[in-house]
């Protein structure tokens, strides 16, 4: 692979680029969808492709394709150089430099991905569904139980001396359980993830879906008010991911982040400690190097309530005059790298969940949010999103609640974090995030 990437770089320079970078990926995956005790679909997938970045002085262009033949690579190299010529000059645009040696001993692959036959992973998906159905008589069905895994290899080579390759594996399973009672219907999501199927516990995943669905039976709208709010890890992770996007130096430098100009300032309650950790062995985004081939690292973002730094890739580091934090992200060979978080990790606190509810006393426990992509203004940080969950009365969980919204803005919310729970969890939605539940002093809840 690395040889192919090297040839792509040479072809791009031959086509007129002053510098070039090639990213190759190869991916073998499968997916099982189960429903009603049967396998609904079984997918076997292979994906491979190459993306080439070409620089002509301070102009940059990108081209990607799936034709890895010599002629295909040459055509793509020429195209990358051609589109680079269309871009305007940007004095900060330039190829990445190596920035040190990649970490060698990361364990990113689990052999069970390749070793488990398809029949076994199909059985895992079916077991997830069964566990939900057996957990509670009010579970009327499961819309879908899904298992998916993938083994990927990535190679990056640049004309500036970057050259690296690594492999990784990942898998996940989830289900959407349906609970029915008194004519009402509720859904509940259960999920688990790991590097291979051995890491998944189908019974726990099924049970979680069932518990979340049945907990919502009989839910009604809460009264509109301002009150303490406890965010379940899945919900906290969604907000942390949005915060992480706002900490990207790209958004900051272009005046489109609520965190612009706040490095060194107070942005959060001291209970919230946040790192970007590209090397956490459990993080699904961990890798020896980032999307530009720069070695991944661990970066403190928020400590003692203070914003320590933004996240940088090569371009934003040039532009900001700082060092790259190895935060170039890629969504595969079809997208050029841009600044983004790797794994966001919220440090766990000491408060158990029951103690957290007692601290909240009277408030709302939010277990699900909807409409994040339309309800958050990433520039101003203001948000209002749909939510469901349970009331907290006298420091204990009470009746289920639905059809309400929670509203605030990102900085106010971070400053209002009063405690982080003791038990963190990896959540894969909207990026890789590990977080415990969070207690927010006050938020607007709008219901009836």
């Amino acid at each position, binding site marked *: 692979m690395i040889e192919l990437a090297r040839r792509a770089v040479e072809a791009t320079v031959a086509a007129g680029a002053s510098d070039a970078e090639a990213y190759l990926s190869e991916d073998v995956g499968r997916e099982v969808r189960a*429903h009603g005790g*049967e396998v609904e*679909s079984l997918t076997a997938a292979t994906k491979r492709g190459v993306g080439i970045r070409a620089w002509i002085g301070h102009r940059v262009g990108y081209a990607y394709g799936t034709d890895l033949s010599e002629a295909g690579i040459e055509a793509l190299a020429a195209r990358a150089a051609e589109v680079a010529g269309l871009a305007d000059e*940007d004095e900060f645009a330039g190829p990445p430099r190596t920035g040190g040696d990649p970490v060698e001993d990361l364990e990113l692959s689990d052999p069970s991905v390749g070793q488990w036959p398809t029949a076994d992973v199909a059985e895992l998906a079916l077991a997830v569904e069964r566990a939900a159905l057996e957990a509670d008589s009010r579970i009327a069905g499961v819309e879908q139980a899904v298992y998916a895994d993938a083994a990927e290899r990535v190679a990056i080579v640049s004309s500036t001396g970057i050259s690296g390759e690594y492999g990784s594996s990942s898998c996940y399973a989830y289900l959407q359980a349906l609970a029915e009672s008194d004519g009402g219907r509720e859904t509940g999501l259960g999920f688990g993830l790991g590097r291979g199927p051995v890491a998944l516990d189908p019974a726990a995943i099924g049970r979680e879906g069932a518990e979340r669905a049945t907990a919502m039976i009989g839910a009604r709208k809460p009264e509109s008010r301002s009150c303490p709010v406890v965010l379940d890890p899945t919900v906290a992770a969604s907000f942390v991911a949005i915060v992480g996007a706002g900490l990207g130096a790209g958004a900051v430098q*272009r005046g489109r982040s609520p965190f612009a100009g706040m490095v060194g300032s107070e942005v959060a309650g001291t209970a919230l400690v946040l790192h970007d950790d590209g090397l956490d062995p459990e993080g699904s985004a961990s890798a020896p190097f980032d999307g530009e081939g720069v070695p991944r690292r661990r970066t403190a973002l928020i400590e003692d309530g203070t914003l320590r730094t933004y996240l940088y890739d090569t371009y934003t580091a040039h532009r900001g005059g700082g060092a790259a934090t190895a935060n170039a992200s890629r969504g595969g060979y079809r997208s050029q790298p841009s600044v983004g978080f790797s794994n966001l990790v919220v440090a766990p606190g000491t408060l158990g969940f029951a103690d957290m509810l007692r601290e909240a006393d009277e408030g709302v426990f939010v277990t699900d949010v909807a409409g994040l992509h339309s309800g958050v203004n990433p520039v101003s940080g203001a948000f*209002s999103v*749909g939510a*469901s969950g349970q009331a907290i009365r006298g420091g204990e969980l009470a009746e289920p609640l639905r059809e309400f919204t*929670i509203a605030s803005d990102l900085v106010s919310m971070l400053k209002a974090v009063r405690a982080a729970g003791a038990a963190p969890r990896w959540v894969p939605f909207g990026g890789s995030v590990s977080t415990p539940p969070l207690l927010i002093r006050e938020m607007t809840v709008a219901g009836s």
Partner: protein
Amino acid sequence: MSDSPGLVEPEVAERAIARALAHGGEFAEVFAERTAGMTMAIDESRLESVQAGAGEGAGVRVVSGGTTYFAHVDGLDPDDLERAADEAAAALRDERVEPLPLQAVASTPQPIEQRPAEVPAERKAALLRELDERGRGAGAEIAQFMASYAEVRREVTIANSEGLYTGDDRTRVRIGAQAVARRGDSVETGAETLGGHRGFELFDGDPGEIAAGAARKALVLLDAGPAPAGSMPVVVGGGFGGVLFHEMTGHGLEADHVQKGASVYAGKLGEQVAQPLLTAYDDGRMPNEWGSDSVDDEGVPTQKTMAIEEGRLVSFLYDGLTARRDGVASTGNGRRESFRHLPVPRMTNTYIAPGEAEPEELIAEVQRGFYAASFAGGQVDPATGDFVFGVSEGYLIEGGRVTRPCRGATLVGNCLEALAAIDAVANDFEMKTGVCGKAGQKVPVGTGQGHVRIGAMTVGGTEV
């Protein structure tokens, strides 16, 4: 077929289908695809993110009983197809099944006057510079402006064991504009898009209008106060306001949700679910509309399906698999993001038919309410019917008049209640473009309506 030859020769497709059925199955299909596209953007008045992409590949599926076996590969060589066919068939253990010989079925792609790939890149760049100028020129308080351009041509060839051999040639272009306005500590954004299943001629009119529109929204919001919180009448704007119907009803009509009992509309066919003033369609044949195709991704001609007739639920939206299960014909709604995905029932262009009322009347009749002029997007859980919409431009209605703009509002509610509460539909019909996500797949969809009023809905602002 369309006027271009198929991506895969019929003989090659036939061989792949036969191999896919080598170990049983009652249906097999080859879906071949070639895409080529280009995107660019302007930001800080600098042209950047110029990107060209191309790819081709095929997906082969075999249906046996309740199970679909699917494999996909990059590349369209006969070897690639056979590899995919063998992988799809690998888990089957039955007797070989003989497919029907292929028969070509002609399709007429949407008319494209000016192929975007043949338009010089400089004109695309000039279009973005024009948007930038219009957006920045809209007011001194416009602090940031970005615009993007995207074109894609997607050729598909579909062949199956029932003897179908057909295809489509799809070209889409879309531009988007986003403005950031700033006054002191307040920052607001506005966005607009223009797109179609169309060539570069889409931009013959005044494409700069979307830049001015995005800037105007951001500027208006600088004067915004907090949004109200609580239940009240809501008037929804035309065009992208149609995302309301898309989320509230469209997803619940997709037959896969219905058949699993995971839709609040299951078992309601023939019932009155809305007031008689409401009629709604899904129409994949609207000329040059963003969500239109000649055939769907299973090769079934797209069609105009009446979903709600004068308030009565009259049809669900089917792909081939769910149609067979219900013993009906596919409604041409089998869509897939690419050859890497299985087709599922999806909307095309979904809209509420125009009513009789003038849009002003809808507002004049409201004493205290909320006017959602446009949405940033929405989301629904079809099983419970709970939905949420982010309002990108909202106003307070007081004494029958639109008074002040509001920031940061979200609408939440339940499908069946909200649909039944639509008590007025205006005549100012308009279509807009959207990108819809379902089961991890994104497809282009059109949404449309005139102004619509909902008797009562929860507005989630911060002013309790």
